[in-house]
C-alpha cells in the first residue's frame, strides 16, 4: 500500500488543480474552522500569558482589603471618615499577622497633575507610596534608583517617573532625566520634586490618541503626600503581600474576619472585604475559558459543515470518475487500494484547507492579540494538533465516499456514462 501513497497524493493534487474553484470552496469550511481554532488558541495563550505576567509583576500573593457597603441597595448611606481604615488598624493587622505578612503597601493619591517645561508637558498622577508598594525588577528600572528607605523616613521630595514621562519631557533620554528638578502642578498648587529614577511603564491598552495625553504615575514617598493631604490617616484600601509559602487566600479571609470583628462589628453600614490576585486570575481565566468555548464552538461548527462539504464533493467526484474507478479495478486495483486512493484525496483536501486555515488563523490571531495588546503565542504542539485534526477530518468524512467507490461493481462502473 505504501508504494501507492505518493501516486495517490499526486493524483489528488492533480484533481484539486483541475477543479481549482470547486476545491477551494470545498476547503473553505475546513479553512475557516481551523483558522478560528488557531486564532482562539493564540488569543487564549496570549491572555493567559498576560495574566501570568501581571500576577508575577504585582505578586501572586498580593491581597487588597477595602471598605465596602454592607447593603448596596441602601442609597441613603454615605461614607464618613470614621468608616475608613486608619493607620492604627493597619498597624494592628500587621502586628497580629506578622508571621505571615511579608509587607504592607500603602498608597495615598495626591491627585492628577501636569509638568510643563516650555512646549513640552507630561500628565501625571502623583501617588505617595511606601517602599512595599514600589516593587520593580532590576530591569524595570531604566535609569537611576528606587526611593530609599531613608527618603521614605524623612519624606524627601524625590520622585520616580515613567519612561513615557521621559519621552515627553526629555526626548526619551532616561539618564538625562535623573537629577532633574520638576515642578508638578496639582490642583493649582506647585510641588517640586527631584527625579531619582525612571521605571518602565506598561502600555495602557485603552489609551488612544497622542502619547502626550497619557497619564502615568509619578511616585513620591508616602510621607510627602501625607504632609499635604490632611485626612491621609484614613485610607479606603490597602494591600498586603503574604510571605512565600503562605496561602494568600486563607490569610486574606482571616485578616478580613479579624478586621470585621475587631473594627467593624459596630458599624452597621460598612465592612471590610478582600480581593486577591489568585481569585482575580481565576476569574479572568474563567472568562477566557468562556471566550475560548464560544470561539471553539464556532470553529467546530465550521469544521463540521466543512467536513460535510468535503464528503459531498467526494461523492460528486467519485460519481464523475465512475469509469476511472471501473478501469482501475479492471487493471487490478483491489477494493482497499481504491478506498485508500479516495481517503487520501479527502485527507489532502482537508490538509490543504488546514494549512491555509493555519495561515489565516495566525494572521487573525496576531491581529486580535495585537488589538488587545497581549502577544499571542502558538506552540508547535498546537500546530501539529491542528494539522492532525484536519487529517482526521479527511479520514472521517472521506471514508464513506471512498468506501462507496471501493464497492463499485467494475462492470457497471466501466459501462457508466
Amino acid at each position, binding site marked *: 500500500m505504501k508504494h501507492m501513497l505518493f*501516486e495517490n497524493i499526486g493524483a489528488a493534487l492533480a484533481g484539486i488543480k483541475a477543479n481549482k474553484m470547486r476545491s477551494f470552496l470545498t476547503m473553505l469550511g475546513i479553512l475557516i474552522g481551523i483558522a478560528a481554532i488557531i486564532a482562539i488558541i493564540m488569543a487564549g495563550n496570549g491572555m493567559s500569558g498576560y495574566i501570568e505576567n501581571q500576577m508575577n509583576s504585582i505578586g501572586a500573593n498580593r491581597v487588597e482589603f477595602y471598605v465596602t457597603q454592607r447593603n448596596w441597595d441602601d442609597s441613603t448611606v454615605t461614607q464618613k471618615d470614621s468608616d475608613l481604615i486608619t493607620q492604627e488598624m493597619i498597624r494592628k493587622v500587621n502586628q497580629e499577622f506578622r508571621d505571615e505578612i511579608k509587607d504592607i503597601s500603602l498608597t495615598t493619591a495626591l491627585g492628577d497633575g501636569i509638568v510643563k517645561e516650555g512646549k513640552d508637558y507630561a500628565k501625571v498622577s502623583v501617588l505617595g507610596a511606601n517602599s512595599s508598594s514600589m516593587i520593580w525588577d532590576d530591569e524595570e528600572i531604566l535609569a537611576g534608583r528606587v526611593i530609599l528607605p531613608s527618603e521614605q523616613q524623612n519624606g524627601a521630595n524625590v520622585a520616580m517617573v515613567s519612561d513615557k514621562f521621559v519621552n515627553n519631557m526629555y526626548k526619551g533620554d532616561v539618564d538625562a532625566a535623573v537629577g532633574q528638578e520638576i515642578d508638578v502642578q496639582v490642583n493649582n498648587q506647585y510641588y517640586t520634586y527631584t527625579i531619582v529614577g525612571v521605571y518602565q511603564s506598561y502600555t495602557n491598552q485603552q489609551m488612544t490618541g497622542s502619547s502626550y495625553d497619557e497619564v502615568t504615575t509619578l511616585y513620591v514617598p508616602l510621607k510627602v503626600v501625607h504632609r499635604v493631604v490632611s485626612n491621609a490617616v484614613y485610607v479606603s484600601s490597602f494591600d498586603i503581600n503574604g510571605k512565600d509559602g503562605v496561602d494568600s487566600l486563607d490569610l486574606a479571609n482571616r485578616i478580613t474576619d479579624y478586621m470585621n470583628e475587631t473594627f467593624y462589628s459596630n458599624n452597621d453600614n460598612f465592612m471590610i472585604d478582600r480581593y486577591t490576585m489568585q481569585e482575580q486570575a481565576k476569574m479572568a481565566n474563567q472568562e477566557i475559558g468562556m471566550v475560548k468555548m464560544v470561539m471553539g464552538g464556532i470553529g467546530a461548527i465550521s469544521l463540521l459543515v466543512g467536513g460535510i462539504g468535503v464528503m459531498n464533493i467526494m461523492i460528486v467526484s467519485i460519481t464523475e470518475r465512475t469509469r476511472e474507478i471501473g478501469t*482501475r479495478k*479492471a*487493471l487490478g486495483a*483491489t477494493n*482497499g*487500494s481504491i478506498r485508500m486512493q479516495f481517503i487520501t484525496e479527502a485527507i489532502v483536501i482537508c490538509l490543504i484547507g488546514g494549512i491555509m486555515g493555519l495561515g489565516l488563523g495566525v494572521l487573525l490571531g496576531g491581529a486580535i492579540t495585537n488589538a488587545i495588546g497581549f502577544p499571542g503565542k502558538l506552540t508547535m504542539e498546537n500546530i501539529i494538533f491542528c494539522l492532525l485534526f484536519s487529517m482526521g477530518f479527511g479520514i472521517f468524512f472521506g471514508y464513506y465516499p471512498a468506501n462507496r467507490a471501493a464497492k463499485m461493481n467494475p462492470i457497471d462502473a466501466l459501462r457508466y456514462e
Partner: protein
Amino acid sequence: MENDVIIDLNHIIKKFYIGKPNELEILHGIDLQVRRGEFVSIVGASGSGKSTLMNVIGILDRPTEGSYFLEGVDICKANDKEVSKIRNQKIGFVFQTYNLVARTSALKNVELPMMYAGVPKRERTKRAKELLKLVGMEERMNHTPDELSGGQKQRVAIARALGNHPAIILADEPTGALDSKTGRMIMDLFHKLNRENGITIVLITHSNELAEETQRIVTLKDGEIIGERKGEAYAV
C-alpha cells in the same frame, strides 16, 4: 508451451436476477479453450452474449455455473482480493473507449497496473517506457489523454495492458471508436504483438471482417457458441 491451454471455460452458464420472476439466462453453457500464443476472435451480434462472456473471461463477473481455469487457477474459488490480483497479473484489458485515466500522463497510465502489482517506481517507469516504445508512443509519453488522438490513446492503452506480462490481452471492440485507417494500425499492432512477441489475444468484435484476420473465429449467438473456424488469413 505452444499448446498449453490458458483459458479453459467449461459449460459456463450465466444468469441474472437469479430467483426472481425476471430471471434471465444469458450464457447457456459455453465451452471454450484458448491456447498460449493464439489470436482468437469472438464474434456475435449485439445481444449474443459476447459482452457477458468477455466479463466472465476478464473475471469482472463470475459465472453462475461451470468452471473457469485461467493458467490453471480455479477462478471460481478465488475471493475478491485474489480476483483483483489475477486480473492485475494475468489479464490485460483494451477497451473500445480506451479508458485512460484523465489528467494522467501516458507514462503514468502505463505504470498503473504495475503500481497495483507493487513493482518499484524505477522499474515500472523503465518498463513503461519500453512498452510505449513498443507501441510507438515513446515521443508522447508525457502527454495526458486529452492531448492524444483516439489511435494514440488506444496504443497507450495497449501498452498499459502489457505491463505485468499478462497471460492474455482481452480486447473489447478495440477499433470500434476509430476511423478505418487508425483501426487498421491498431489491428496491425495486435498482429505484430501476437506474431513477434507471442502475446495471446482474445478479440471481441461484431465485425466479421476483422475476425477473418485472426487465427480462430468463435461465433456466438443467443448465448451459445454456434461455430468455430479458422480465419481466412490462416485457412489453408
